[in-house]
């Protein structure tokens, strides 16, 4: 008898995702699913889906879900968590959602130390609307709204969200990870699991930024996209545990 060493997490639905080839959302969804399984959280979980490519996360992760308006997921999650403090509440948001239109909501949820978990997927571009410039688009990076590349003179500088949130007292945990290599995937998994554990232990706001490739809108092959992420994104968005609470499981 062959031993099963790899299977679909129980908290994920048996469906094919709509994500483009080389997109990292699928990997990140899976890591969320694995962490929910390992901590046995799925039955008590309410997820909050954003506006963006990952709005359809509720088609893939088999927990209760609420679809929030653009950028407001942390406020919706706050309402859920305040009403049901014993349940597990997480948001899953892209960089347009969280770092542009939703800046007020994320900063204040973090400042309150709201006991929720935020998975922040940063691919430096607007995916669903077709490749427009994001607050995280790198200087020089082209997009459909910065066709000659982002300039700091006209468009300002990309926002480093972990660094910004790390100025606040409220968060219990802040980490930035990536999933472009197996080693990074393992590290990312550990961070997501730790962030979930922070909430379970009532430590307050936990935040994991995951750098993610968008080959379609970057105009690259999946392999080139992984390399671009490594060469261009990671130097500006360093992978780091900004804040790790002591003694978290």
């Amino acid at each position, binding site marked *: 008898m062959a031993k099963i060493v790899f299977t679909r997490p129980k908290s994920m639905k048996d469906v094919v995702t709509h994500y483009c080839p080389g997109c990292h959302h699928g990997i990140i969804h899976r890591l969320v699913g694995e962490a929910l399984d390992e901590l046995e959280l*799925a*039955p*008590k*979980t*309410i997820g*909050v*889906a954003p506006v963006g490519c990952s*709005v359809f996360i*509720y088609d893939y992760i*088999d*927990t*209760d*879900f*609420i*679809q*929030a*308006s653009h950028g*407001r997921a942390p*406020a*919706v*999650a*706050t*309402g*859920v*968590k*305040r*009403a*049901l403090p014993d*349940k*597990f509440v997480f948001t899953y948001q892209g960089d347009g959602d969280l770092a542009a239109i939703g800046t*007020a*909501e994320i*900063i*204040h949820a973090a400042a309150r130390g709201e006991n929720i978990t935020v998975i922040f997927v940063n691919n430096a571009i607007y995916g669903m609307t077709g490749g427009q410039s994001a607050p995280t688009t790198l200087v020089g990076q082209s997009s459909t709204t910065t066709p000659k590349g982002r300039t700091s003179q006209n468009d300002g500088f990309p926002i480093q969200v972990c660094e910004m949130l790390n100025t606040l007292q409220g968060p219990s945990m802040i980490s930035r990870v990536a999933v472009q290599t197996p080693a990074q995937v393992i590290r990312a998994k550990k961070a997501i699991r730790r962030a979930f554990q922070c909430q379970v232990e009532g430590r307050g706001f936990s935040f994991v930024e995951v750098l993610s490739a968008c080959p379609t809108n970057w105009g690259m092959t999946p392999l080139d996209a992984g390399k671009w992420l490594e060469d261009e994104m990671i130097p500006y968005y360093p992978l780091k545990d900004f804040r790790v609470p002591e003694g978290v499981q």
Partner: protein
Amino acid sequence: MTQKVLMKGNEAIAEAAIRAGCRFFFGYPITPQNELLEYMARNLPKVDGVFLQSESEIGAINMVMGAACTGARVMTSSSGPGISLKQEGISYIAGSELPAVIVNIMRTGPGLGGIAPTQSDYYQAAKGGGHGDYRLMVLAPSSVQEMADLMFLAFDKADEYRNPVMVLGDGVLGQMMEPVILPEPKEGNAVEKAWATTGKGNNPESKLITSLYIKPEEAEKFCEHLAAKYRTMAEKDTRWESYRAEDAEIITVAYGTAARLCMAAVDMARDKGIRAGLIRPITLFPFPSAPIYAAAEKGARFLTVELSTGQMVDDVRLAVNGKSTVGFYGRSGGMVPDPRDILSQIEQIESEKTGTTAATEGGAA
């Protein structure tokens, strides 16, 4: 227990909401509704409720949405500019079929306007307000007692229809003190909320609360479902009050503070032998078109009175549907008419009864 107490309108709303089972309040300061927010901050924790001051009205309405998703009784309150900010969230709440209560204590606009009382948010309240094909149930109290009474109805109807309910007051009602008998507290939710997202537990299927319908066929079906819900509201839950309107030849139509002024004007007109009356909509949506049309068919002529430059008057004209004349009198910008000014308007209409068929409203003849 049925003791009369003297309360400000804003505080009566807050206390009645708590008694109606509201345990969650998310809001942001804005005049003239601050007493409501502050009352909740003081008193919700006493009943193990949650008060949270949000970073913005946008934050507040989305927190309301989150708590509503769990099946809790939840509300927010604001005034004009803040209600504008909440519109995105209100549209999502309506589109997600969630019960919630939103109070608007109207101040003047547009823009920053001023803090004096008006009724200039009628269109915004009665026609949906945010994007998309939806309506709110809109309740318009005209006294502190009615503010308290309607809060119970607001929460019950929000639950029953799974639809946001707006309580539309103004700066006069919010700020003035009147004696009020507070309704007895109510425990628990009357309606079972099997749709609530409280975690999957042992259920085979997880639950989803969304307003996203990507396929036009499904989106149309959903919009038709909402439209059917609003028709049911119109059939079952249209509310109004008639005052000396039974035999009236001139009927004023007004809500809230303007209706109280009209009652005084109607009494003065009756003293002068003019058969005047009042139809006071209590629900602005659904609008009480039927009693207005019935009176128009009997030959009554109408005067709409509002603390605005004329918004509800459109619905009165639609209700009358050409059967009679509809005049308008309003003051705006926070100015409140004297009942004698309204009386003058009634007398003007009365004087036009004889002679040529004069219209009470503009346009070159």
